[in-house]
């Protein structure tokens, strides 16, 4: 199978696009398409500061790589969840993010060295050429370097995600619900407090259609209405959230990481085994195998229907208030779900310690 652009051996065939590409042209195609989606859905502009939520996996690291190559000022944020799972999962994930940052920084330094010496890239020096063309000639931004912001949940809040999950009824024994709640809160806070214009996540099309499938099965019009490539910062305390990879299949983001040479954590989160989202992905991939493009059409037609207001009149009108403690929006009066999670812990801890005669005041 040959590359449609140059006729050399293809590394990937994207059946939904009837498009096969060689490594070189695939590495060009992914950033080009990403830029197209950024513009089409009005995600952000070249002057805005972006915070990319990275997990050490293929999607988020590839997204960070692509945004930097496109010349965006994108920092990373890693949330240490404290998941061990027999594979040292969180530590390994963190290590991948650190390694990524170190590699990309040295590539950018090479580019700067070349630029500052007014040496034009030589033919055949593809890495420098890539960076020159993709990072561009923004000399005013030449000293900017990406950084990785790390939030270790156990260090900041005193408990790991599995510990929190074990003492709550939320998620019925599985930490995924607690994990999602905490990550959403922390990502929003770090984006807002760090002065970022936008929070970008590596959600790919398979993630999106799995969520869409689940919400369609239950006709959850509220969630359907809020699923989009861009979630605007339309309430005080909310950061704008974007998903620049929302139209790439998962196999394309994995292929990008492999061909680009990005090291990522292959293991799934140990708690993801048996999750509904994976089951939905498998069902959808079974259909995709027999009908190429079915996932893409499902997603695009949903976006079109949503745009035309299909779910708007059925959606519940939810009034949001500012949480009394953290200020983030919440549908409940008083504390948001995140703060209630920790409030409960502090109350329990205080009760335990008070029963031992220790004078403890609940943490503010």
């Amino acid at each position: 199978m040959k590359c449609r652009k140059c006729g050399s051996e293809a590394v990937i065939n994207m059946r939904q696009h009837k498009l096969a590409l060689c490594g070189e042209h695939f590495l060009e195609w992914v950033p080009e398409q990403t830029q197209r989606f950024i513009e089409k859905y009005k995600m952000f502009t070249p002057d805005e500061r972006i915070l990319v939520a990275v997990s050490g996996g293929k999607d988020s690291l590839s997204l960070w790589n692509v945004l930097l190559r496109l010349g965006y000022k994108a920092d990373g944020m890693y949330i240490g969840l404290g998941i061990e799972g027999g594979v040292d999962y969180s530590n390994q994930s963190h290590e991948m993010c650190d390694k990524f940052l170190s590699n990309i920084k040295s590539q950018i330094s090479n580019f700067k060295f070349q630029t500052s010496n007014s040496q034009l890239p030589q033919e055949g020096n593809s890495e420098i050429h890539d960076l020159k063309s993709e990072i561009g000639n923004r000399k005013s931004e030449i000293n900017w370097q990406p950084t990785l912001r790390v939030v270790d949940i156990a260090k900041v809040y005193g408990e790991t995600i599995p510990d929190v999950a074990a003492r709550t009824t939320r998620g019925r024994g599985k930490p995924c619900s607690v994990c999602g709640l905490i990550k959403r809160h922390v990502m929003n806070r770090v984006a807002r407090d760090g002065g970022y214009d936008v929070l970008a996540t590596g959600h790919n099309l398979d993630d999106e259609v799995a969520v869409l499938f689940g919400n369609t099965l239950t006709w959850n019009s509220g969630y359907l209405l809020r699923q989009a490539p861009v979630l605007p910062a339309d309430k005080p305390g909310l950061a704008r959230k974007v998903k620049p990879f929302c139209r790439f299949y998962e196999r394309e983001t994995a292929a990008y990481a492999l061909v680009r040479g990005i090291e990522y954590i292959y293991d799934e989160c140990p708690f993801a085994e048996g999750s509904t989202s994976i089951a939905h992905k498998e069902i959808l991939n079974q259909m995709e195998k027999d009908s190429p493009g079915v996932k893409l059409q499902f997603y695009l037609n949903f976006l079109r229907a949503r745009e035309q207001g299909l779910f708007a009149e059925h959606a519940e009108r939810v009034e949001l208030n500012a949480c009394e403690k953290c200020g983030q929006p919440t549908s409940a009066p008083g504390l948001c779900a995140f703060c209630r999670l920790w409030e409960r812990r502090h109350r329990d801890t205080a009760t335990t310690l008070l029963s031992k005669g220790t004078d403890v005041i609940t943490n503010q």
Partner: protein
Amino acid sequence: MKSETMSGKTVKLTYRNKQWELAAGMTVRDAILKCGLNPEQVLAVRAGKLINEATILKEDDEIKLVAVISGGAFSIRE
């Protein structure tokens, strides 16, 4: 795990902790299907390089199948 060695020319495929030995001469896509996997959910790597699904597997090829699904993806709903 599975062996098809009538012609004597075989290829090896590995996926996580599983291994298959199949007859050489089939495409990557057919080999993935023969292993009972979905070609939408794996990528094939030979000698460290990604190969496309129509590639014919040759004798003694060693193919690593890489899972593309990551799980437990959370929604970033508000």
